[in-house]
Structures are given as C-alpha cells and as structure tokens.
C-alpha cells in the first residue's frame, strides 16, 4: 500500500485475476440476456393476437374501411389507467359496433407484475374475456408499481370476476404461457419507436397525447380525423 511508486516489476497477478473474474461474470450475464431478448417466432400466442399487427390483441382487423387504433400500454402505467378511464367505454363501443379496428399491445417494461398481468390478459382473451379483464385490471391498478399485489392468485380471482374460471386459465397463468409473446410485443413496440405509454397510433400515425387525450371529445375527434 505504501510503495506506490509504479515500478514495473510489481506483481499485478491478483488484480488481473480479479478483473478477469469480474469481466467473465458480467459477460456470462450479458450474452444470454442479449440472446434471450431476440423475438421468438415459435412463441405461443393468444388466438386473437395478430402477428402482422405487432402481436397485439386485435379486434375487427378484417374490416375493410374503418380507422385503425393501435394502443401501446402497460397494465401498471398510471396514465394508461387514465386513458382506459377516459376512452374505455367509447373504444368498447367501437369494437362492438364494428366501427374501428382496435389492437392492444400489452407491454411489460415496468416490471414483473406487468408481465404477469399481460400474460393473464392473453389467457383471458382465449376465453373471450379480454376487454372485461382489461377493464377490471385497470380499475384495480395498485398505487405503486410492482407492489406484490398482482400475484397469480390475484389474477385468477380477477378472471373469476369476469367469468373466466377454467382450469386452462389458471394453468395459463401459473405457467406464464405467453411470456415469450410479451417479449415479441416489446420488440415490435421498440421497432415502432414506442418510448412511453400510453402511445396511440391512429391509422399508423402517432397521436399527440398532450393534445388528443385532454378529453374524450378530443380523442374522438382524432379518431374521426383518422
């Protein structure tokens, strides 16, 4: 410690060994992470998810002439809950009356509970209850992110709340059946330069949240304008 005069003969073996271990461990973590982030073409996806629409849960995409609304959201994002509260009924109406194509892109960047929720929503979609489940989760969004509220048991109970109680639904949640699907959604969203949620595209054009989401009327006008 005291002889720090930089003489070249001093032994740096210990330091070099420690550095090699540190760098080695980091690489051992980094490389599999890089590989696992790649999209997985063979991933299981919910029946109503559409690969060509960025793996989103899609409604009415076979309509010939109707505006297309792409919604990028994360179940834990507070502004997304606000968006759902503001426009949920209206969008449900558009879907039921076949007045718009609507695609929900369930992102999970906020954390593991977003992943669990997105997966569970995919499971609920297989029982035809996506919109109901979607609404229920936003209505019960925890105040803080990743608070431990959205456990598998919670999500199963939420499913029962909207009439999904099949064995298939619970094992879909327990197995995180659609985990790789959410990864593909994330990659697709990234390729569309989605950097915050909610991000809404109408006919492929990103709307301005500061202007088009101030009220339901503003959003309706944006949809009508196309």
């Amino acid at each position, binding site marked *: 410690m005291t002889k*720090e005069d930089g003489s070249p003969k001093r032994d740096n073996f210990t330091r070099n060994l420690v550095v090699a271990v540190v760098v080695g461990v980091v690489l051992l973590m980094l490389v599999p992470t*890089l590989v696992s982030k790649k999209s997985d073409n063979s991933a299981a996806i919910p029946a109503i998810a559409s690969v060509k629409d960025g793996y989103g849960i899609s409604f009415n995409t076979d309509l010939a002439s109707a505006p297309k609304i792409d919604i990028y959201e994360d179940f834990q994002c507070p502004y997304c809950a606000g968006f759902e509260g503001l426009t949920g009924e209206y969008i449900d109406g558009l879907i039921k009356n076949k007045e718009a194509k609507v695609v929900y892109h369930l992102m999970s960047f906020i954390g593991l509970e977003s992943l669990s929720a997105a997966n569970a929503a995919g499971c609920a979609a297989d029982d035809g209850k996506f919109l109901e489940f979607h609404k229920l989760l936003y209505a019960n969004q925890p105040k803080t992110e990743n608070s431990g509220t959205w456990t598998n048991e919670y999500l199963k109970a939420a499913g029962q709340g909207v009439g999904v109680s099949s064995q298939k639904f619970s094992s879909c949640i327990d197995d995180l059946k659609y985990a790789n699907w959410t990864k593909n959604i994330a990659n697709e969203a990234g390729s569309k330069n989605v*950097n915050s949620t909610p991000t809404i595209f109408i006919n492929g054009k990103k709307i301005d949240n500061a202007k088009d989401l101030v009220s339901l009327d503003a959003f309706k006008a944006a949809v009508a304008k196309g």
Partner: protein
Amino acid sequence: MKNSIEKYSPWIGLISRLILGGVLLLAGYLKAGALDKSQMAVRAYEILPIGVANFLGIVLPYVEITIGILLIIGAFVRYMAFAGGVIMFIFIIAISQAWARGLTIDCGCFGGGGQVAASETKYLPEIVRDAGLVLLSLWLIRYPVTRFSLDKSKN
C-alpha cells in the same frame, strides 16, 4: 503545495473512485433490472437507429456495472476513470441535444427514462451531475495512485 498533493491525492482519489464507481454501479444495476425500459430510454434520445439503440440499451448497463466495480476495487484505475469519464461526457452531449431539440425525455440515468411530460424534464441538474463526475474522472486520470487500490503500479 506539492507535498500536500502527494499526501492527500491518494485519499481524494479513493473518494473519487468510490463516488464515480458507485454511481456507475448503481446506475447499471438499476437499468439491468429493467432492460425494456433501458432500451426505451436510449431510443427516446432519437440519435441512434432503433436497432443500435436497442442493443446499447442492453449492453450499456453491463458496461457501467463493470467499470463501476473495477473503480471501486481500484483495478486499472486510470483506464477505468477514462472510460467512465468518456461515458459521462457522451451522456452530457446526448442530454444537451435532447434539450436543444425540445425533446421531453427523462435521461434514464438510473433506470426509468423515455418520454415524459415537458414539466417533468430536469436537464440542467442531470448535466451538472454528469459534469461533476467528469471532473472526478479527470482527477483520477491525473492522479491514478489511490488508497486501498488493487493496482500495484500507476497503470
């Protein structure tokens, strides 16, 4: 004066190493726990092509962790200080250009990031903090011999 620098510089160097290394380690650790967000944060600067930004969003946290650990244990102090300083300098440029272009983003320095409301940007404090870290790295490049370091020579 020269004597007092010789006397105190190893201690100042130790503190600089711990601050610079600690900040890098913490920043990398927080980002590595939420890589989707990290990728989003890099994309939001709108400098790099999306593919490159996504790659950097994954690699950068691990680079920060590595430099952070090596600075804390005091291995290759001069080189690691240089690398850390270069990273901070690039951050300053990236944040400045976002500010100048009127983007409204969070720097994503400690996780988080992406677009935020205009009222939530805090570009100036972010730049001042990173500039302070650049100064620490310059000190370590000039005086790389520090207390409690694994380095046995000046490099």
